[in-house]
C-alpha cells in the first residue's frame, strides 16, 4: 500500500527558498532549545519523548477527508498542549527529521520548509490560540476539547498556507496564470478538513491525559481548574 504524507518532497521548492527556510528553521529551533530547556525537567523530558513517538505513530494514520484525498495529524496542537510550545516544536521537528532520513517522507532539501511549516508555524499558531481559548472557554473537558479542535483547524491551515507562501516565493515549476490562487484555495479547503481530524484526535488524546494525569498537561499548569487540575502537592 502506498503511504503518502503531508510533507514537501525534494525538488518541489527552488533552491533559494529551500535554503532560506533552512535558515528560518535553524534560527527557530535554536530559540526552541534555549527556551525549551527551562521547561525540560525530570518529568517533562520523558513525556516529550513519548509525545514525539506518539506523533510519529499518528502521522501514519491517514484518514479520508474528501473522495480521493486524505490527511493526517501534524501534531503541533497536541505537542503544545502536552509539553508546551518550545519543547513541542522540537518534538515535531525530531519526527520530521526521522521521517526524512529514514522513511523517505519529505525531502532532505525540503526539511527546512517542512520544519518551518509543520513544527514552528503549526505549533506557534496552535499555542497562541490555546493560551487565549483556555482562559475564555469553560474549564471543563468540553472546553479543553473545543480548544483542541479550534486550535487544530486554524494551525493546520496556517501550516498549509506557509507552504503556499514558500511556493509563491520560489516554487520549482512555474504555474499557469491564476494557478497559485486556486492552489491556495484548495490547500485551505482540504487542510481545514484535515484540521478537524487533527482537532478531534488531539481533543480525545488530551482530554484522556487530563482525566488520568492532569499534572502532565503543560497547558493546564497555572490554571486553577477544579474540574481538570488536582491541587499541586
Amino acid at each position, binding site marked *: 500500500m502506498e503511504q*503518502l504524507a*503531508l510533507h514537501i518532497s525534494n525538488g518541489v521548492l527552488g533552491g533559494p527558498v529551500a535554503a532560506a527556510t533552512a535558515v528560518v528553521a535553524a534560527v527557530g529551533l535554536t530559540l526552541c532549545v534555549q527556551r525549551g530547556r527551562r521547561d525540560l525537567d525530570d518529568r517533562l523530558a*520523558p*513525556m516529550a*519523548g*513519548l509525545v514525539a513517538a506518539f506523533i*510519529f505513530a499518528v502521522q501514519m494514520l491517514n484518514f479520508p477527508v474528501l473522495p480521493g484525498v486524505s490527511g493526517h495529524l501534524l501534531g503541533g496542537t497536541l505537542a503544545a498542549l502536552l509539553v508546551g510550545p518550545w519543547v513541542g516544536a522540537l518534538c515535531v521537528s*525530531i519526527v520530521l527529521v526521522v521521517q*526524512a532520513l529514514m522513511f523517505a517522507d519529505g525531502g532532505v532539501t525540503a526539511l527546512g520548509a517542512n520544519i518551518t511549516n509543520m513544527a514552528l508555524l503549526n505549533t506557534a499558531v496552535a499555542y497562541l490560540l490555546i493560551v487565549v481559548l483556555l482562559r475564555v472557554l469553560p474549564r471543563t473537558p468540553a472546553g479543553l476539547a473545543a480548544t483542541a479542535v479550534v486550535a487544530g483547524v486554524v494551525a493546520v491551515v496556517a501550516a498549509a498556507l506557509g507552504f503556499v507562501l514558500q511556493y509563491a516565493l520560489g516554487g520549482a515549476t512555474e504555474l499557469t496564470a491564476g494557478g497559485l490562487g486556486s492552489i491556495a484555495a484548495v490547500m485551505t479547503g482540504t487542510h481545514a478538513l484535515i484540521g478537524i481530524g487533527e482537532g478531534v484526535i488531539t481533543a480525545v488524546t488530551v482530554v484522556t491525559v487530563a482525566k488520568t494525569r492532569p499534572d502532565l498537561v503543560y497547558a493546564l499548569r497555572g490554571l486553577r481548574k477544579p474540574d481538570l487540575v488536582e491541587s499541586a502537592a
Partner: protein
Amino acid sequence: MRRTTGFVIAGLVVALLLAGVVSSFASGAPDGLDSASTRGCTVDAAGEITGGTCMAQGAKEHEVGGPFADYTFTGAGGDFAATAVSGVVGVLVTFALAGGLFWATRRRRAPAQ
C-alpha cells in the same frame, strides 16, 4: 512530584499499537498536499505525471531512500508486515532519539513548585 514512568510506558504501548497495527488500515489516497501538488497535471494509474503544469513536476527521487522508504520495510513478507515493522521501528527510533535528546538537555534541578 508523581512519577511518569508508568504513564510513559502505557503511552508507548498505545503508540506501538497505532503504528504497528492500526496503520495498515490507514487511507492510501493522496493527502491534501499531494492532491494539490498534482492539480493542473494529468496523472496515469501508476501515479506518474503524463502532462500539464503542476507543483509536483519538479519533485525528484528522495535523496536517501533506504529499506524503510515510504513506511514499507523491504525485508518483510507482505504488506501488513512491511507497514507494521516500519511503524514499530519508527516509534522506537523516535522515542529513543527524542527521549535521549530531551533527557540529556533537561534541567538537572527542578525549582520547588
